[in-house]
C-alpha cells in the first residue's frame, strides 16, 4: 500500500540514474540537493505556491466552519417558517454535481472581475456552499440535549448567545472534523485553481506542481519527487495528528447519511 509513496520519497533523495533501474527503497547515498533545486529552481519560488495554498486553505476552513455551523444551528434548533422546505433543498444540493453550476459561476466571477484572484476560491466557502458540512453538523447538533438550550432560552438567552456559548463549545469534535476535511480538500483541490488562477504568482501548490511537471518534463525526476513529497506534507501531518477524528468522522458521516 505504502510502497508507491515510499518510492516517491526515496526517489527524492536518489541520484537521477538510480531512480530508474532500481526498485529498491533505500538509496545508495542520500542526496538532498533535489529539494533545493525544486524549491528555488522554478520561475517562481515553490514557497510562494505553498503560501498561496495556505492562505486559501485557512480562509476556506474559517469560512466553512462559520457559515456551515450557522446554517446547521438554524436547521437543528430554530423554528421558522418553511424550515423543512429549505432543509430539503439543502439536502438536494448534496446530490447536485458541481459541473452544473460551474460555467455560470465562472461567468459570474468573470463579470465581477474576480477571475485571476483567489476570491472565487474563498468567498463561496463563507456562503455555506458545501452542504456536506451543514449536514454533518446538523446530525451532531441534534445529539446535544435540547434541555440545555431550552433552559438557556428560559433564562432569556438570545439564539445567538446559545449558538455561541452552548452549541459551539459542545461541538468541537464535529467542527474539527469539518475544519480538517475542509483544509485537506482545499489543499488538494486542483480543478478550482486550474480554472480561476492563471498568473503563476497566484498559483497554489497543486498548480505549481503541475506546471513543474510540464516545464521540467522528465529531466529532473528527483526534484519533481521532492516537490511532490513537500506538497503532501500538510495532509500527512494532519492525518498523523487527527487520525482518530478523521476516521470517526468519515465512519459516522457514512453510516448516518
Amino acid at each position, binding site marked *: 500500500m505504502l510502497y508507491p509513496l515510499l518510492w516517491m520519497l526515496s526517489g527524492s533523495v536518489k541520484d537521477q540514474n538510480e531512480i530508474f533501474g532500481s*526498485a529498491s527503497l533505500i538509496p545508495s547515498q542520500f542526496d538532498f540537493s533535489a529539494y533545493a533545486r525544486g524549491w528555488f529552481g522554478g520561475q517562481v519560488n515553490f514557497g510562494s505556491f505553498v503560501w498561496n495554498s495556505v492562505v486559501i486553505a485557512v480562509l476556506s476552513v474559517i469560512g466553512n466552519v462559520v457559515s456551515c455551523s450557522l446554517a446547521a444551528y438554524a436547521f437543528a434548533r430554530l423554528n421558522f417558517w418553511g424550515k423543512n422546505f429549505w432543509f430539503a433543498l439543502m439536502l438536494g444540493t448534496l446530490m447536485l*454535481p458541481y459541473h452544473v453550476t460551474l460555467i455560470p459561476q465562472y461567468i459570474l466571477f468573470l463579470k465581477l472581475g474576480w477571475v485571476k484572484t483567489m476570491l472565487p476560491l474563498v468567498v463561496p466557502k463563507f456562503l*455555506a456552499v458545501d452542504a456536506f458540512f451543514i449536514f454533518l453538523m446538523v446530525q451532531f447538533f441534534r445529539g446535544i440535549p435540547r434541555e440545555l438550550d431550552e433552559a438557556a432560552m428560559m433564562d432569556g438567552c438570545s439564539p445567538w448567545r446559545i449558538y455561541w456559548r452552548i452549541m459551539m463549545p459542545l461541538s468541537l469534535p464535529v467542527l474539527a472534523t469539518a475544519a480538517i476535511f475542509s483544509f485537506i480538500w482545499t489543499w488538494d483541490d486542483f480543478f478550482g485553481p486550474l480554472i480561476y488562477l492563471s498568473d503563476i504568482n497566484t498559483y497554489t501548490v497543486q498548480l505549481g506542481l*503541475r506546471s513543474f511537471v510540464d516545464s521540467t518534463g522528465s529531466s529532473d525526476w528527483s526534484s519533481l519527487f521532492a516537490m511532490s513529497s513537500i506538497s503532501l506534507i500538510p*495532509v500527512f501531518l494532519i492525518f498523523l495528528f487527527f487520525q482518530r477524528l478523521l476516521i470517526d468522522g*468519515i465512519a459516522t458521516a457514512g453510516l448516518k447519511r
Partner: protein
Amino acid sequence: MRVETYQKAPSAFARNAPGYLFLLPWFIGFFGLTLGPAIVSLYLSFTDYNLLQAPHLVGLDNYARIATGDDKFISSMKVTLFYVVCSVPLKLAFALMVALLLNRGIRGLPIYRAIFYLPSLLGSSVAIAVLWRQIFDGDGVVNTLLWYVLGINGPSWISNPNYSLYTLIILAIWQFGSPMIIFLAGLRQIPTDLYEAASLDGASKARIFFKITLPLLTPVIFFNAVVQTIDAFKAFTPAYVISSGTGGPIDSTLFYTLYLYQEAFGYFRMGYAAALAWVLVIIIAVFTAFSFLSARYWVHYDD
C-alpha cells in the same frame, strides 16, 4: 391576563427572524451560487455562448449534437463508463475484504487502518497523479519490477492507449480506504450474539458470512456503491495530470469531466459545455434512481 399573554406572544417576525438570520450566508450561497447558476446553466445549454458575444438561442442543437454526431462525447462516455464499471466494484471488493480482515481483532489495528486509509486521503492531489505517471512510465518502477521478477519487458503503460486507462483504474482501486473505514464501522454494528448463536449451531465460516455478515452489511454496501460511483463519474485530476490535459493517447483517458473542461475552458463553448454538464446530471440521476429501485431487492433493513 389575556391582554398580557397577547402582548407577550412574539410576532411572526420575531419568531422567524433568528432562523433566517442564521441562514443568511447559506441563502446568499444557495440562490447566488447554486440555484441561480443552475437555472442559468440550463438556459445556456440551449444557447451558443463563447463569453465574448451575448448568448444566442439555438434550441436543442447542443443536445442533438450530443445525441447524434459527437465522437468525443461518445468516446469520453465510453471511457468514463468503463472506468466506473471496472474501478467501483473492484474498489469495494478490496475495501470489504480488508475490512473483514481488520475486523478480526488483530493487534495493531489502528496502524493497519491508517496504512490502508492514507492513500485515499491523499486522494486527488496532483502529487499522487504525478507519482502514478512515473510509476507506470516506460522506465518506471512497474517495468523495473517486471523485468527483475519475471524477466518481462513491460510496455510504456501510460503512453499506450491499450493500457493507459487501466493505470487509472489501478490508481482508483489503490485508494479504497474511505469505503473500507465505512465497512469497518458497519461491521462493528452487527450484533455479536448473532455470530455466537450461529457458531453454537455449528455454522461454517462461509455460511456465517453469506447468511449473517453480508445481508446485514447490504445497507453499507449500497451506500458505498452509490457514493463511489458518483465520485467515479466526476473523476478529473488523475486523468488531467497523467495525460497533460489532453485525455490522450488517442482519447483513451478522455474522461467525461475532462472533455467538459476542454469544451468550456479550452474552446470556450460554454453553451455546449453546459449541455454536457446537464447530460452528466441526467446520467448520474438515472443511475442513482436505478440503484435505489434495485435496492428494494437486495438491501436488507432491520425493520
